[in-house]
């Protein structure tokens, strides 16, 4: 037992070191297009491993990401855009005076984005988790719409449908990649603790969990708020990457993509979420051609925007019907190496 713990720690260190090296290497050597994709992948890794916490590990079906990402993005944008830029871009009405005073450095902005999202999550959790029932999905779906409605209808704060621009481009691979590493380690540490065990128990058999003294309400709320925190931070990183955000950026498709990612990777597996992100975000780029006019065996088809999404939704249905476990199932990278030792299944 003692020896294998040390070996595990060395492997972990090696993985993190490789990741850090890769971030350094990519920043210096890859072209802009590739770096943009890598930034996207890093941010979506943060979103995916946290979305996986509530959906996969705790087994509570939620559709929250687009809402909390939007919240995080707007909070960050409000804190990063300079007062001059705000005065200039708020075109529908003038911004409230307090909006002009909002200012913070990047780290503070990201932390506030995360905490504000977590706070909102907490207020949602109380009515939803108190009752038995599958209302989390509908409530979080509605929440996403509400955030959009709030953003559009409060132009003095958010500049309404025009969205916010001139967000300083603070995000680079060091930020996105670094925070991704932190997020992954945090989530893994949570899962491998009494809190993670409680979440898994809730997923496997909520009544038996209660019978073992687990406070299931607390477990679900913790998972949900933690997800929201990282989704808020991810939203902030996204805002500082895109430099420009608007209410319809964070639509249902945003959440849907994350859903496919964690299902493909394996609901409940953090490693799976990472693999899923690489495949889906990478694959999404590659699949752009589906939206363009295509040449199939000499036939020219017209552009079919949205075909990508049709393919995605079919993919999701097929996975659920035929390969529900996804790539990793509930296992982590660890578990693959354990295969010979304890006698496989």
């Amino acid at each position, binding site marked *: 037992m003692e020896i294998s713990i040390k070996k595990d720690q060395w492997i972990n260190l090696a993985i993190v070191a490789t990741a850090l090296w890769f971030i350094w290497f990519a920043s210096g050597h890859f072209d802009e297009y590739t770096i943009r994709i890598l930034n996207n992948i890093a941010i979506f890794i943060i979103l995916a491993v946290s979305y996986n916490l509530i959906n996969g590990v705790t087994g509570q079906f939620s559709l929250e990401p687009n809402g909390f990402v939007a919240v995080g993005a707007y909070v960050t944008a409000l804190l990063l855009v300079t007062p001059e830029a705000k005065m200039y871009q708020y075109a529908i009405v003038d911004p409230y005076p307090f909006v002009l005073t909002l200012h913070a450095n990047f780290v503070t902005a990201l932390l506030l984005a995360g905490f504000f999202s977590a706070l909102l999550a907490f207020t949602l959790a109380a009515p939803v988790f108190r009752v038995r029932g599958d209302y989390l999905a509908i409530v979080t779906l509605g929440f996403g719409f509400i955030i959009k409605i709030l953003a559009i209808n409060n132009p003095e704060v958010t500049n309404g449908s025009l969205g916010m621009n001139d967000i300083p481009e603070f995000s680079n691979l060091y930020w996105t990649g670094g925070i991704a590493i932190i997020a992954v380690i945090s989530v893994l540490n949570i899962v491998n*603790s009494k809190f993670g065990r409680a979440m898994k128990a809730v997923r496997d*058999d909520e009544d*038996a969990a209660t019978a073992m003294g687990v406070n299931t309400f607390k477990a679900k709320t913790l998972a949900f708020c933690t997800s929201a925190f990282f989704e808020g931070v991810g939203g902030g990183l996204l805002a500082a990457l895109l430099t420009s955000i608007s209410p319809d950026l964070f639509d249902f498709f945003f959440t849907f993509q994350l859903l496919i990612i964690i299902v493909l990777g394996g609901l409940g597996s953090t490693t799976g979420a990472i693999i899923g992100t690489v495949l889906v975000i990478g694959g999404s780029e590659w699949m752009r051609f589906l939206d363009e006019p295509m040449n199939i065996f000499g036939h020219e088809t017209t552009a079919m925007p949205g075909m990508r999404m049709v393919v995605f939704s079919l993919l999701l249905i097929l996975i659920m019907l035929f390969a529900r476990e996804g790539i990793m199932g509930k296992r982590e990278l660890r578990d693959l190496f354990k295969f010979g030792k304890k006698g496989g299944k």
Partner: protein
Amino acid sequence: MILKIDNVTKNFGGVTAIKETSFSVQPKEIFGLIGPNGAGKTTMFNIITGNYEPTKGQVLFRNESLTGLKPHQIVRKGIARTFQNIRLFSSMSVLDNVLIGFDFQARYSFFESIVRFPRFISEEKRIKNRSMEILDYFGMSKFAHEKATDLSYGQQRKVEIARALATNPELLLLDEPAAGMNPSETEELGQIIKKARNDFDLTVLLIEHDMKFVNQLCDKVLVLDYGKTIFEGTPSDAIQDKEVITAYLGDFHND
């Protein structure tokens, strides 16, 4: 007296599952709750564990009323249970299943678990060692890293009891623990329960159909029929009681 059921009635809509039932369980007793199917035995369990609120009456544990307490709070007061159809956590190992029982006794915070402060490490080590001890007691420690639901039925039953004991209970509720077992497994289980009662300082309340098992194990029994008490006393007296025999009408497993 460690547990007192005080004039408890439970109605579900129009159906009366338990009618004005009272009984007491003394410390370290092995107390059997028996009766034909549908007599209200599992309902009584669920009232004790807090999953159902009694329509009338109350449950007193160590002279403290359990009314209004949530199930997980009642566990922390010292009452643990197993289920008739063995509900182990299917995605987790045997060790993790037992660890869950200890978790509310582990003293580290959320933040400490993320940054892996020393208190996290020492507490995790402490409860892991305690879990292995309990598994060892039941001879299950060699299966610690197996997926819990991969084990045989008898082995899973032992793990479930180990898991319940991890919560450090004073009162252990066993819902048909011998269900689905052959005579030799049943005999072994009876020995284990008796030994655990002594070694862990437990009081045991169990639901059972197997009269031989009940005879071998229980100090006292309560016979329920249609939610009402029809007999309270020793198992051997119970078998001879006229009302009990009528209620069962041959439902006895007297092999």
